[in-house]
């Protein structure tokens, strides 16, 4: 979903750029509460993994493909503010080094994939987590649904931006109908990858997963010793 240069007019690009810059500045301060000596390395790893995952376009329908966004994956693993920073790092590297996503569109891409997808996705995740059982299955269900919804949410936000600042005057319904169907299918891939990766990390280091704090084990018999030495408070 990387927006190239040219799709949106300069005013819209400046506005999304300002929104992105403000959000990143805020995230630099708020992420501090999510990051310590144990979780910061996981944040770097998650960003690198999202970069790699975004390279894998999977076929969606005849002649179309989609790839991971990774916003919910990152927010569930390392926290929403840290996810804003990780997604911004990925999008910055892609735009500057790989010419993937425009440079003037960088603010738009951060707004869509680094901000909107995180806010909507993590919001859905928290909402579902509040009503689902605090178990591995509950966490993965919430993460999967949130990841699925984050993709059409970002796609529809692009439709909104295009309605305001698109350089071609097209009916909103035309753009919306073209964007929605394909991104619903891509959302299924997003959910599958998110559940697989969060599930894998939960299997080995549940204590590191931001979105699984307070999680109980599905298993009745479990080793209840503290996770690691050296974490005395």
């Amino acid at each position, binding site marked *: 979903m990387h927006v190239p240069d040219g799709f949106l007019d300069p005013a819209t690009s400046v506005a999304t750029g300002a929104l992105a810059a403000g959000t990143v500045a805020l995230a630099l301060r708020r992420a501090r509460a999510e990051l310590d000596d144990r979780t910061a*390395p996981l944040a*770097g790893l998650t960003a690198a993994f999202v970069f*790699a995952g975004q390279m*894998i376009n999977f*076929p969606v329908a005849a002649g179309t493909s989609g790839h991971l966004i990774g916003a919910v994956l990152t927010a569930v693993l390392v926290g929403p503010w840290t996810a804003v920073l990780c997604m911004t*790092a990925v999008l910055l590297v892609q735009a500057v080094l790989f010419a993937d996503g425009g440079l003037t569109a960088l603010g738009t891409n951060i707004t869509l994939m680094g901000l909107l997808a995180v806010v909507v996705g993590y919001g859905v995740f928290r909402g579902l987590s509040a009503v689902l059982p605090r178990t591995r299955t509950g966490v993965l269900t919430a993460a999967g649904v949130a990841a699925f919804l984050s993709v059409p949410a970002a796609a529809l936000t692009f439709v909104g931006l295009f309605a305001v600042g698109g350089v071609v005057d097209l009916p909103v319904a035309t753009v919306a109908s073209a964007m929605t169907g394909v991104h619903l299918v891509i959302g299924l891939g997003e959910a599958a990858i998110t559940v697989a990766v969060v599930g894998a*990390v939960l299997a080995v280091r549940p204590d590191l997963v931001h979105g699984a704090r307070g999680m109980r084990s599905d298993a009745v018999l479990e080793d209840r010793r503290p996770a690691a030495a050296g974490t005395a408070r």
Partner: protein
Amino acid sequence: MSRRGRTLWIVGVALALVVAGVVSWYASASPDGLEWAAEEAGFAHTAEDSAAAGSPLADYLVDGEENRLSAGAAGVAGVLVTLLLAGGGTWLVRRRGAPGRG
């Protein structure tokens, strides 16, 4: 980092390198959802080349050479730069000292 934390990190980085350096070669080359929708709705032609289009890593290839080695090297470089940027950034921002409220 604890020993298990280090194992997770090393396995994770290795996996990211393999995905970006090897698996990416087999990714679908079809237009993605946005590109497809832009063609469908009729605004694909408004896309402009990025000012970074001349980058030696543009289009996830080294100097535009379309072969496994070039694509793999570009992917590996991207993972490492992202790891450095995001990992370094979050390491600088983190709370110092033992885990807990701080």
